[in-house]
């Protein structure tokens, strides 16, 4: 198979190379593993993490929290979003709640969650509160953008309300839900790891990052960061692949 690389891909590769060079330059300048380890050492450290006996538990626990938080946000975000998109009254009720959720600093939610909940659920709770507003807002926007003429057509043909929601509204808002899910995921992983750093559950990327930081293992902190970035990237790809499969009618033009 011949792999061809486009011009923009070359530029992106150059950007990564630039970041690595900058990192190497700074590492040489500080010349201390306690401040900034060398990129190649960090890479070795990252790879060595995969071999650690606890690795699967640590990453698995974080992924599990992410997936649970995401699933709950998705169910409530889409459900309430559809209701608010269809009913102005319910939208008026939901709007202030969303505004408060979106403008509350994550750290404030964490501090409260630490008092209310156990260490394992704090990150999930925070993930839900950060992801839900994104998905919900996008769903509302999606419903608002639905072609009213299609709805009118369905009504003339006496299609039931539930089927209108399922076959007219839901497919129409799918691209909105996916873009909401994608930004929610991006923010969600960060929120989960902050939550883990502060709540210290037994397993979790945040937990191990925090202990590495305590012992000034800067290379381990960065190595775990790289793994967190990879995780976020993998889930972003999964969402995009799902989009291609669901929105097949768009691609077929």
């Amino acid at each position, binding site marked *: 198979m011949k792999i061809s690389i486009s011009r923009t891909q070359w530029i992106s590769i150059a950007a990564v190379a630039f970041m690595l060079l900058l990192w190497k330059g700074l590492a040489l300048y500080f010349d201390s593993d306690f401040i900034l380890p060398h990129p190649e050492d960090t890479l070795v450290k990252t790879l060595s993490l995969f071999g650690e006996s606890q690795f699967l538990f640590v990453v698995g626990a974080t992924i599990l929290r992410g997936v649970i938080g995401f699933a709950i946000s998705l169910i409530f975000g889409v459900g309430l979003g559809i209701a608010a998109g269809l009913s102005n009254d319910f939208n008026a009720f939901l709007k202030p709640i969303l505004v408060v959720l979106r403008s509350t600093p994550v750290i404030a939610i964490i501090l409260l969650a630490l008092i209310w909940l156990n260490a394992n659920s704090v990150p999930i709770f925070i993930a839900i509160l950060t992801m839900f507003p994104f998905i919900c807002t996008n769903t509302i926007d999606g419903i608002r953008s639905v072609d009213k*003429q*299609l709805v*009118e*057509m*369905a*009504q*003339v*043909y*006496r*299609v*039931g309300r539930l*089927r209108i929601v399922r*076959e*007219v509204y839901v*497919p*129409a808002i799918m691209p909105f839900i996916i873009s909401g899910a994608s930004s929610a995921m991006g923010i969600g992983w960060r929120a989960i790891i902050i939550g883990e750093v502060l709540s210290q559950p037994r397993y979790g990327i945040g937990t191990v990052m925090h202990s590495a930081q305590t012992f000034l293992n800067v290379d381990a902190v960065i190595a775990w960061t790289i793994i967190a970035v990879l995780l976020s990237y993998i889930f972003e790809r999964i969402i995009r692949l799902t989009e291609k499969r669901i*929105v097949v*009618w*768009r691609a*077929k*033009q």
Partner: protein
Amino acid sequence: MSLHIINLHKSYGDLLLFSNFNLDFAEGEITCILGPSGGGKTTLLNIIAGLVEPNGGNLVGFNGKVLSYIFQDPRLLPWQTVQENIEFVLTDAYEQTQRQAIASRFIKLVELTGFASYYPSQLSGGMRQRVAIARAFAYPSDLILMDEPLKGLDVKLKMNLLKAFSRIWQADKRTVIFVTHDVDEALMLGNTIIVLGDIPIAVKARVSIDIDLKKRDMSSDYFKNLRLILHNALGD
């Protein structure tokens, strides 16, 4: 049997569309409504369809009638295939196997065999409108409303669609109310042609044609004469 619109009243703000407006439609016939574009003809159809509330008046005989509506735009669901778009309106009325058979039959009637699994985005404008026609006829309705479904299509396509339409109509002779601003479309399809004037709308002329759709010769003196009468009534 016939349908009546009695003393219809409808205005939008200061714009008075209908005042004491009366009109009858014969059942089992195609009634064409001719009138200037944007003169409230769509509003009339929407009132009949129950999409717009009139300010006053009575619709007699329409109660309980099941409607199909062919809009100016095809209004197909972009995420459903041709087959699915037709089945979409049949789901509550038929079992799955029956529904598939009906959809396939009408796809064939509008000459779209082989396109059943295509999405609307993969079809031309004329093909999409044919799907909308198939959907309207596949639906078990008593009355079909058509709002200038051929507007903006080229002449050849128009003729094809008109032929497709009259072929399907011959099969079950449903009541059709066909709004258009094109005199020739009305002459080709109408059993009755009604000419409406400017707002507030009143009936300016009413013509009946007792010739079978298949036997109409547009170049005959009879139709030339009718064409002249209708153009005069329209004030062209």
